[in-house]
């Protein structure tokens, strides 16, 4: 069960069950839909940009525990960050979920709360679940008109 408990850490289960920042966002300036065609997971991410930074982010939709927890944690950690900072953070997050914590020396501090997804890399099929909300948020900030799909990201 050890790999499983790495994946489904208490924090992940908690965010999956009681997602934070869940629901519509009044005054949102950016929106995008994220789809995982393999499992039908479907999220909409809303963001309110002001002065070049994300003031608030929320999400709606349905998905598995991993995708929901990832969206929940993400919408918290991106507050106060610019689009470029979010891209840089996603790069680290993506490395974490594909290659594991060992690939990011000194990572715990940089990743903060995102470190709870360190078990995902043992389950390559779940990387898309963990990345879905991030793809949607980055597409929203880039002004995407079409829903983004995990399949288009080529991972």
């Amino acid at each position, binding site marked *: 069960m050890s790999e499983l408990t790495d994946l489904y850490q208490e924090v992940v289960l908690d965010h999956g*069950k009681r997602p934070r920042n869940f629901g519509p966002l009044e005054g949102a300036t950016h929106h995008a839909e994220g789809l995982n065609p393999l499992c*039908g997971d479907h999220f909409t991410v809303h963001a309110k940009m002001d002065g070049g930074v994300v003031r608030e982010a929320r999400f709606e939709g349905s998905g598995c525990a*991993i995708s929901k927890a990832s969206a929940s944690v993400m919408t918290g950690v991106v507050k106060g960050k610019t689009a470029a900072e979010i891209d840089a953070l996603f790069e680290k997050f993506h490395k974490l979920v594909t290659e594991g914590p060992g690939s990011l020396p000194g990572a715990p501090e940089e990743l903060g709360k995102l470190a709870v997804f360190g078990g995902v890399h043992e389950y390559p099929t*779940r990387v898309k679940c963990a990345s879905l909300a991030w793809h949607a948020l980055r597409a929203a900030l880039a002004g995407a008109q079409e829903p983004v799909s995990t399949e288009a990201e080529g991972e």
Partner: protein
Amino acid sequence: MSTSVSSQRRIHAADPAGRFDPERARADFPILRQKVRGKPLVYLDNAATAQKPREVIDAMTRYYEEYNANVHRGVHLLSERATKAHDDARRAVARFIRAADPHEVVFVRGTTEAVNLVAQTFGRQRVGPGDEVLITGLEHHSNIVPWQMLCAEKGAKLQVVPVSDAGDLDLDALERLLGPRTRLLAVAQVSNALGVVNPIRQITSLAHARGVPVLVDGAQGIPHLGFDVGASGADFYAFSGHKMYGPMGIGVLWGRKQLLEEMPPWQGGGDMILSVTFEKTIYNAVPHKFEAGTPAVAEAIGLAAAIAYLERQGIEAVAAHERDVLAYAVEQLRAIPDVRLVGTPAERAGVVSFLVGDVHPHDVGTVLDGQGVAIRAGHHCAQPLMKRLGITATARASVALYNTREDVDALVRAVHAVREVFA
């Protein structure tokens, strides 16, 4: 000599009554001997693909080691052997589905290609503006999208037979939907998502009463029930090799000879022609008319080996064993608090789909995998059916001849682990 005596004795000792013995069959599948994530592998994802017995693997290896050559064109011995093996494979398929003539057996890559072939040849020839193609709410995307594409191209209408909450087809509606403009009915023998067995004979007689030909998607049916193309009344029958213990990359389209002969060819190339000039090409006879290019020879040989294997086990005996395991799975899963079965059809084969509380099926699949239990989680390429049932996905356990009640017990233990993780 001594080897054959001892192996005979072993068979008799293991199986005194000559009945199907799942434990002995299990030993024929090398892949099942492994552990995954530290646990003995319990493979219950057979509706996605079945594992291969040693003799299928050996038959393909022998072809590559001993007589690999192109077919239908060499004047040398290896090509003669390869051509004969390829022809024998076609005969084996014809025998297995009780086709009157091996020339009615077209080799394709799989069920998907078979359906597309019919849509692109028969469909393009027979379906026009205002016509209708009738499918059902149970279909896999591969028996929806090719017809949708055809209808879009021709300005025709796609009609869908509704499904009850239990997962059974509404046959009254089916009868009503068979109209004067219906050009084809396409229906699954067995639903891949729910395991519903459709009453094919009844459906084909309803359709034929209105002069509508029927394509049966046998991908999920043939490994569990076999198929008798004559008795079924089907006009086309499509299936894949890899779900019936054969290799991937080979499948079959069977069609009534007259229909196949009337259909235009599909892809152009070698093997499908009799003569070519720049002015005019004369097409080969069926089935070669539909088999452009070098065929998948090793795969056809592997499929024939899989058929021989299934015939030796006895499809009725396999079906009876699988029915027992599946009924046990239904009963055991149903007894678990907060497990909900999705689809409770009148007749079931191969598959049981379920939900565990409000845990997403993807998470169910991952926890089961951690226990060595391989299942499928998702929409099973049947999104319209999921939508009809008001869900986005299910966890699906699917059995094959080598599964046992012990495998079901392992599944049930793993489902309890899901409930603990997400308590």
